[in-house]
């Protein structure tokens, strides 16, 4: 089978799969295709869509590939969807953040961080399958433990949990010692090692 036919099959798989499809699964399905080839073909398709100005693009979420509409068409799609568009309150986002960074975590721990009861918001997150029950903590009372779901990765466009940006360290939140705010920034050359920028697209430096 020539490469172009393979590419079209890969395209069909990414389009028609009920959930994000992994490179491994693609390789399993397409005869004579290695995992590496699958990745390369997906990347090629992505570039094609971009060049042709298509209304969709390929995302890597929850360990797999998925075709998604481009953000600029969101307003039209929201009109089309019968279900109410996804809305996450601040309470929901804060609770999700604690679960995401601390999992597995008990309800009491979440409440300690947020300083409010989270009963109702946890129920709503469970219902929306952004959070799941991940067993019990083996302490008296056996409180339930919560963790994020694959659906969470999909909704937030994360390949895996490690793709979450690192939580800011406490020290960073404190004002620098001995300065009354707005001390000179460290000189550009001073950084011993460049910070690894896996966030992409953030364009940290722009000198004009």
């Amino acid at each position, binding site marked *: 089978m020539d490469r172009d036919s393979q590419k079209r099959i890969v395209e069909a798989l990414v389009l028609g799969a*009920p959930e994000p499809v992994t490179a491994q699964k693609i390789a399993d399905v397409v005869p004579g295709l290695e995992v590496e080839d699958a990745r390369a073909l997906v990347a090629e398709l992505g570039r094609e869509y971009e060049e042709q100005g298509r209304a969709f693009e390929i995302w890597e979420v929850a360990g797999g590939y998925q075709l*998604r509409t481009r953000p600029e068409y969101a307003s039209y799609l929201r009109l089309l969807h019968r279900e109410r568009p996804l809305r996450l309150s601040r309470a929901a986002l804060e609770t999700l953040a604690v679960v995401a960074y601390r999992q597995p975590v008990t309800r009491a721990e979440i409440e300690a961080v*947020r*300083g409010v*009861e989270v009963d109702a918001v946890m129920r709503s997150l469970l219902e929306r*399958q952004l959070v799941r029950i991940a067993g019990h903590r083996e302490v008296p009372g056996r409180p339930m433990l919560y963790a994020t779901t694959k659906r969470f990765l999909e909704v937030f466009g994360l390949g895996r949990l490690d793709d979450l940006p690192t939580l800011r360290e406490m020290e960073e939140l404190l004002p620098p010692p001995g300065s009354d705010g707005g001390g000179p920034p460290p000189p550009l050359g001073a950084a011993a090692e460049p910070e690894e920028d896996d966030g992409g697209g953030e364009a940290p430096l722009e000198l004009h």
Partner: protein
Amino acid sequence: MSFESSAPPADPRAADLRPEGVTAANACAIKLPVFEGPLDLLLHLIRLNEVDVTDLPIAEIAQQYGEYVSLMHELDLDVAGEYLLMAATLAWIKSRMLLPPSGDGEEAEGADPRAELVARLLEYQRYKEAAEQLGERTLEGRDVFAAQAPEAEPLPDDERPLAVSLVALLEAFRRVLAKSGGTGRHEVTGEPVHVRDRMLVVMDALGRFESIEFERIFELESDGPPTRRLLIATFLAVLELVRLAAVRVYQGLSDAGVPDGPIRLRRAEGPGADEWSAAVADIT
């Protein structure tokens, strides 16, 4: 109303975060941001006063905090207990600050009564920022939409919600009990199993799978062979979920129209499925 003058300056976020029920007519007079709890309110006051979180002017902050809370009362906003608890904490810290530093070295000299609160505030701030970042991401279902074929598992034609479910269900449950090797002997050991827990487990599993065979339900999240107690709690959980219309129980029909074959559970469509957990909270 007179509280307007006593209210701290309006927060720029106020316009966006108006509490529900505040209509445009009275909104301009109120400008009270809605806070995610006492810690959020404190962070807001700290930002507003441009003070250093590690060196909180407690008396000032406590006073403004109190003003906000009474304002919320006046507005008939639901002031949760945690706001009042924090007010008490602030008052306690304030009183501790007024005490002269104890001379005898018994009490740790350096122990700042504010330290614990500061740590909580900083901890909360980290997650608040992380939450903001999450909210700014490109969300599927809001900003982008997946091309996603629905799971190809249509309901077979011969499966219908079981009209007279209880007999068949009880029969199936009896088989489960028998298979578990339960001799009917009294079990003394084992922790309590709550029906409410099992309801959550069942709903969680039905969130992950389209449908589940009745007998598999009893194997969920149990380490080792399930106890009789767990089996019964699980069965009661299923019945309760059916009653709440959160779950539907199906059994295939034979050609003769007689229920036949495995019984399956499926998440119900419709409002029942969304309200089940509200009911769960009331059952323990």
